[in-house]
């Protein structure tokens, strides 16, 4: 994991929160002010009406009082005399004077007495007529006849004459009026017979009344405005304190949090002490911030962990893929067989594996295996199984012995009870003999030359890792030139489609037999295509691993030149003679010939000395010459006890004669003079190979 810190806070920063364009305070003030104003207006109208009516009544009563006083001045029974007086008799003038005085002291504008035309009250005749001298109006003179102003007057005159009312009041403050708005109080002047003789009217201008009314209105308006201002300021201050300030704090905190993603140093609750919903909101935000911060920390950690695991997993996939042979053709210099294999794990890493390797120049190991389970555990077990299997196989034993050994090794430390099914075969390349053993694996598919692929129902042993002490049995097949063997894991026949149908062995065989003559790579391609066509879009559930080997027959090469003798010192000369003869045939330079002779001498002396305890045993010396590289290869094979001369430490060649031990130089000399030297112990044989390039 190279950079745990390379995973920055991934939380996306939102747009910064903008200051609100409208304010709760303003809104709530409007919300209060509007009803308040409406209420005030209604109250004002009602108050105004009440006040106005009361004022008018008072005003009217004043006018009627004046009218009563004026009526005392006039003797109704003498009305005819007044009418006939022509306005000049002393009695008439006395009344007129007194009335004039009353008019000017009672605050009335006009006081007048009229005789209406009683036929239809359409005309009136002025008898007495007085005026407030300060008023701008003029009066109607005695006897002046004028048309009645309107029907209202007529009705009221009639009502008075008909004794339906003692008094009548007329208010003229709107419509077409000759003078300013005014009221007229009228009373009937009754004679001693109780009949109305004339009508006395007192007219008062309403200017005073209006002025008083306006004063009242102004006062009310002022009081209302003052009240409203008070309410606005009070409301604003109150709202700001209990609502707006906490809301702003919360907004700022939320904006800061969305930017920084860290819980605040000072909790909102420290500055917002409201016990209402705002307080609850502040507390919720405090808690939310803490939880989100924890959550972010968790998520960041989890994300980093996941990245790390994913990186490691892909690395594991690469290691696993690299661990099984994956370069094709794997043995380009081996024309005797051709081989192709594929592995498609269902997950990143899988439990299936195939393997193939040359045990020696004549033996090819083939493995197809499937570990129980999937994913990393299966992959780990697969790696271990593969190593153990190959190691055991390289010891040169038969398939059954290899499986038995592998089983013991796996069982000895298999605490998780995992197991692996294995099909293992060892092909003797020179003869086509295939020895195989099956530990619970799928049946291999064999194709005879010219024939079709068919399942080989071989004998199954228990899976590797199932139980220790299991013995495996091996069987032998003879591959002929053109024979093919197809190995696979259960992922192939058990591939399923969306309808949960299995691909099955029959479909697999059909795919194989599509073109049984094809090369291994194409055959695997045919199977793969068939599986893909079958499963369609269904998710690959199991690993898909396949291997196909085609045996093409032994290489036609010159018979190997070899000589088998007893491994004794006496036979060195015979072996040297055999090799020298070959060397002469290939025109070997003398120096190389001498060096090879020394090497034979040293190696044989060694084998004669160490290999066999009880009497001399056989030693086979093979001679090979690669003309292309002009390399001579000598192979010494004995069946003695395992002894690797290459493990012997090189002597110290710097010591003086007296300090140097006698001997121990032989193998060292060979190492120094040959171009290559190799030792193997296989199939119970010591195999020592030396190579010398002829310049």
């Amino acid at each position, binding site marked *: 994991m190279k950079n745990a810190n390379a995973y920055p806070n991934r939380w996306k920063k939102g747009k910064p929160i903008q200051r609100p364009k409208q304010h709760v305070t303003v809104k709530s003030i409007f919300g209060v002010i509007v009803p308040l104003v409406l209420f005030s207006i209604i109250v004002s109208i009602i108050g105004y009406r009440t006040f106005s009516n009361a004022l008018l009544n008072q005003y009217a009563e004043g006018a009627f009082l004046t009218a009563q006083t004026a009526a005392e001045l006039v003797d109704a029974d003498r009305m005819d005399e007044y009418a006939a007086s022509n306005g000049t008799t002393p009695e008439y003038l006395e009344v007129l004077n007194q009335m004039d005085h009353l008019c000017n002291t009672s605050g009335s504008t006009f006081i007048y007495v009229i005789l209406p035309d009683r036929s239809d009250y359409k005309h009136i005749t002025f008898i007495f007529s007085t005026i407030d001298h300060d008023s701008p109006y003029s009066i109607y003179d005695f006897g002046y006849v004028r048309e009645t102003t309107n029907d209202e007057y007529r009705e009221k005159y009639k009502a008075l004459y008909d004794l339906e009312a003692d008094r009548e009041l007329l208010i003229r403050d709107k419509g077409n009026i000759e003078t300013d708005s005014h009221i007229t109080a009228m009373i009937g002047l009754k004679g001693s017979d109780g009949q109305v003789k004339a009508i006395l009217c007192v007219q008062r201008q309403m200017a005073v009344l209006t002025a008083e009314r306006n004063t009242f209105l102004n006062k009310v308006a002022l009081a209302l405005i003052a009240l409203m201002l008070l309410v606005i300021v009070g409301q604003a201050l109150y709202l700001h304190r209990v609502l707006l300030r906490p809301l702003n704090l919360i907004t700022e905190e939320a904006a800061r949090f969305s930017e920084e993603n860290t819980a605040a140093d000072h909790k909102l609750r420290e500055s917002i002490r409201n016990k209402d919903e705002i307080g609850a909101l502040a507390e919720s935000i405090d808690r939310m911030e803490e939880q989100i911060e924890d959550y972010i920390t968790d998520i960041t950690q989890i994300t980093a962990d996941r990245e790390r695991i994913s990186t490691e997993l892909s690395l594991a996939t690469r290691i696993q893929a690299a661990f099984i042979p994956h370069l094709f053709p794997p043995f380009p210099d081996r024309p005797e067989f051709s081989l192709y294999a594929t592995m498609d794990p269902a997950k990143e890493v899988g439990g299936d594996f195939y393997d193939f390797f040359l045990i020696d120049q004549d033996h090819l190991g083939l493995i197809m295996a499937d570990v129980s389970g999937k994913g990393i555990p299966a992959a780990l077990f697969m790696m271990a199984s593969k190593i153990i299997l190959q190691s055991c196989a390289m010891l040169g034993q038969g398939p059954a012995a290899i499986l038995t050994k592998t089983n013991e090794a796996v069982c000895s430390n298999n605490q998780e009870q995992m197991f692996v099914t294995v099909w293992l075969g060892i092909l003797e390349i020179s003869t086509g003999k295939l020895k195989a053993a099956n530990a619970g694996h799928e049946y291999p598919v064999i194709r005879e030359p010219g024939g079709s692929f068919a399942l080989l129902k071989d004998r199954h042993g228990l899976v590797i890792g199932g139980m220790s002490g299991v013995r495996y049995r091996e069987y032998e097949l003879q591959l002929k030139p053109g024979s093919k063997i197809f190995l696979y894991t259960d992922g192939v026949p058990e591939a399923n489609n969306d309808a949960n149908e299995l691909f099955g062995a029959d479909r697999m065989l059909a795919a194989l037999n599509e073109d049984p003559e094809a090369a291994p790579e194409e055959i695997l391609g045919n199977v793969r295509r068939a599986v893909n066509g079958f499963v369609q879009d269904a998710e690959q559930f199991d690993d898909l691993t396949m291997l196909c080997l085609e045996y093409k027959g032994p290489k036609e090469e010159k018979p190997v030149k070899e000589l088998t003798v007893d491994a004794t*010192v*006496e036979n*060195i*000369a015979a072996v040297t003679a055999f090799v020298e003869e070959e060397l002469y045939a290939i025109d070997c330079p003398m*120096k190389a010939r*001498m*060096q090879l*002779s*020394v090497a034979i*001498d*040293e190696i*044989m*002396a060694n084998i004669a000395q160490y290999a066999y305890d009880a009497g001399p045993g056989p030693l086979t010396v093979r001679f090979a010459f690669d003309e292309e590289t002009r390399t001579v290869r000598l192979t010494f094979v004995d069946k003695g006890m395992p002894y690797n001369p290459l493990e012997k430490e090189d*002597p*110290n*060649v*710097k*010591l*003086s*004669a*007296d300090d*140097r031990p*006698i*001997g*121990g*130089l*032989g193998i*060292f*000399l060979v190492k*120094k*003079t040959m171009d290559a030297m190799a030792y193997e112990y296989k199939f119970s044989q010591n195999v020592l190979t030396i190579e010398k390039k002829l310049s």
Partner: protein
Amino acid sequence: MNIEQKKDGKALVLAPEGRLDTMTAPQLEAALQEALPGVEELTFDFEKLEYISSAGLRVLLSAQKTMNKQGAMKVIHANEMIMEIFEVTGFADILNIV
């Protein structure tokens, strides 16, 4: 193996012919055992020797150890092949090769 011997007083010249290997080295060893007592100047003449294996080297080393006590030893006429073996094994530093 034919080993030519020339003894002149306290000087001994041994000239083995052919190959000095596992088979023939014991012969040289036997010849030395017989002739070496009293020798103060030992000369190996390898003019007719084809090659030498580690068995031969053992004999030479053994002779060198003896001569270190009773006189001097030298090797003459060693061919290229033999010289290379002497070089590789460090014998070139031990032996007095003329």
